[in-house]
């Protein structure tokens, strides 16, 4: 009962503070950016520069083959500038590629260097076989360079035929991907709603410390844990509301909101408890700033692994935002794994309870720091 009235009081105070509206306002801004400025699918285009050292007829044959290889491939004559010189080029635009066919080997070298994109020269050698020369920047991995160096050791036609015939099987045949806009939701929710709780709750406590609220609890009938818990409830509620503001208009009713609520609440609880624990060691936000900021930055690192799924070292899985982002992703995937977000929620709840218990002991002992 005391907890409920504490919560009500905190909620009234929060509704009068500017912070509460900043939270809701920023959720609305994120939503507007997602809906208006983020395309459903990011179009990333790679550029290459190519010189074909063949007779004109064979060059045209190559271009025709590329143009006919898929629909939507276009060709036009353009001029490109590099290092103060202008080069004529035939630009072939495919779905994700721009290939500039230029008139000389020197142009390929200059353009590859100036534009920092790969270049290739294809010629016929003395034995009338194709020879390849690649211009790379130097930072490409050894493994990639190895592949490039032998890629065309075989006849291109035979290679393409063999690749086409290479059998490929899938363990989950019914996988349905999400678009790029939907794919940005898990990291946004993780930082915006989930982990800002740590920062905000620590700020809340420092404010109350400054005003002597925590010490005043020593002479009330209410216990410190109820006071702390009511703060957590308010921050978690704010994060749930802002999370739903972002998620609902983008995802509609296609996802399981029970799981969304569960994950938002448990991560809110975990991060708020972490914020509480940090605030129990310091007098004010300025002193705790370093720890909080380092943690926020550390928590951002799994976003790299999220967007580069081939890079997933073990240590990154130990950072709490990793299961948080992956859990959200499973929730928004059309046939996502339900077990993963449940296990992640249980983990966050358990970790939050432990952190809360430790913090409560610290606050009870000191009533301030």
């Amino acid at each position: 009962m005391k907890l409920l009235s504490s919560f009500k009081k905190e909620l009234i105070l929060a509704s009068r503070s500017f912070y509460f509206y900043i939270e809701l306002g920023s959720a609305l801004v994120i939503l507007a950016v997602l809906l208006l400025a983020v395309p459903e699918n990011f179009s990333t285009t790679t550029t290459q520069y190519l010189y074909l050292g063949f007779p004109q007829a064979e060059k045209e044959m190559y271009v025709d083959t590329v143009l006919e290889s898929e629909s939507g491939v276009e060709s036009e004559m353009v001029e490109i500038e590099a290092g103060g010189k202008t080069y004529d080029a035939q630009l072939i635009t495919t779905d994700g590629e721009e290939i500039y066919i230029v008139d000389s080997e020197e142009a390929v070298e200059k353009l590859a260097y100036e534009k920092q994109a790969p270049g290739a020269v294809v010629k016929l050698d003395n034995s009338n076989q194709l020879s390849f020369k690649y211009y790379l920047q130097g930072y490409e991995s050894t493994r990639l360079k190895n592949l490039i160096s032998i890629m065309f050791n075989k006849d291109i036609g035979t290679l393409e035929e063999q690749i086409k015939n290479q059998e490929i099987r899938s363990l989950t045949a019914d996988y349905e991907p999400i678009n790029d806009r939907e794919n940005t939701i898990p990291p946004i929710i993780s930082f915006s709603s989930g982990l800002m709780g740590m920062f905000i709750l620590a700020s809340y406590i420092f404010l109350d410390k400054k005003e002597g609220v925590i010490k005043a609890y020593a002479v009330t009938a209410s216990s410190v844990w109820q006071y702390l818990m009511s703060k957590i409830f308010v921050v978690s509620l704010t994060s749930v509301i802002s999370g739903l503001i972002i998620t609902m208009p983008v995802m509609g009713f296609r996802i399981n909101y029970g799981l969304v609520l569960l994950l938002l609440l448990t991560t809110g609880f975990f991060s708020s408890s972490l914020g509480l624990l940090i605030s129990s060691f310091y007098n004010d936000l300025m002193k705790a700033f370093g720890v909080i900021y380092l943690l926020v930055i550390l928590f951002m690192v799994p976003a790299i692994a999220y967007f580069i799924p081939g890079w997933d070292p073990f240590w990154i899985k130990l950072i709490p935002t990793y299961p948080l982002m992956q859990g959200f992703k499973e929730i928004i995937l059309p046939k996502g794994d339900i077990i993963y977000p449940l296990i992640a929620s249980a983990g966050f709840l358990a970790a939050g309870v432990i952190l809360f218990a430790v913090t409560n002991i610290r606050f009870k002992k000191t009533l301030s720091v």
Partner: protein
Amino acid sequence: MLKRILNIFARDLKINSREFITLYIMIIPLVMAVGINFISPSINDTTVNLALIKDENLEQAGYFDDFAHVELFDDRQGVENRIMARDDVLGVLPEGDGYYILTQGNEPGFIKEYAKLLNVLYESDVQLEDARSEIVEFGRTVPPLKKRLVNMLLLLISMLAGMLIAMNILEEKMDKTVSAINVTPTSRSAFILGKGFTGMFVAVVSSIACILITGFYDVNLGQAALVIFSTTILSLIIGFLQGLNSNDIMEAAGSVKLLFLPLGGSVAGYEFVTGNWQIFFWWSPFYWAYRANDNILSKSGTWPQLLLFVGIILAICGVVYALLAPRIARKL
């Protein structure tokens, strides 16, 4: 006037060093720069991850290892379990006389094509020793991802510097000394510059240190200093806005989150949004700062281009300042 500005700067520096916050704000970016150095080589080495059965074909495993990351498992089930993990790993499993590629189903197309090509090359006995292609390298050693991370770090530094200014002003507000300035010989502009100096100093020192730590020794430091200077003007305005608009630390902390929006949005806009859609980000000085830094870190920036970008940043800052000047004056 200069003396008064320096006095305010020296006083802030002294107070900040007592609170350790200046030290934090200077050290955190350096720690992050070291972190970028630590993770970027392994990210850059990412091609494709393959899972194979141990002892099934040692020669094949050795062959693939020259082109991809290879993990070995005791049996087929082990390979399947690994494929079903959250990252992108493909299996190459034997059947009859050949091998097939096993996927989870959610991998991007280019990863599957890479694995198919590798298996075809192996089955065709194309060896690395027989390589016929010549590779010419330009000697650039910094991968694009590292450049992006450093660029983001530079923007973050300017934001941290803005926060430092905000906290300095907040401290004055809480001590109720802001209005007291009006009865001293210090002018309002001297106060603003003096208060901003600490943040600007921190931003310039940290940014240059981070550029050097991350290995960008050969970028044009003059150009970098120019962009850093313009972003610190941005920090100054941000800091003042935060500091004057917030009544307590709680509100200042909340407004930090608001600042992450234009920063994150501008970076995402520049990196992911193509063509004419980028117009939607032109209003953000962070967008121009990121673009200018990108040119500098890529060593492709020309002075006229950079001056244009810096001019745009300063113009946007000028407009924001002109709009908010009456408010700042009132709050002071």
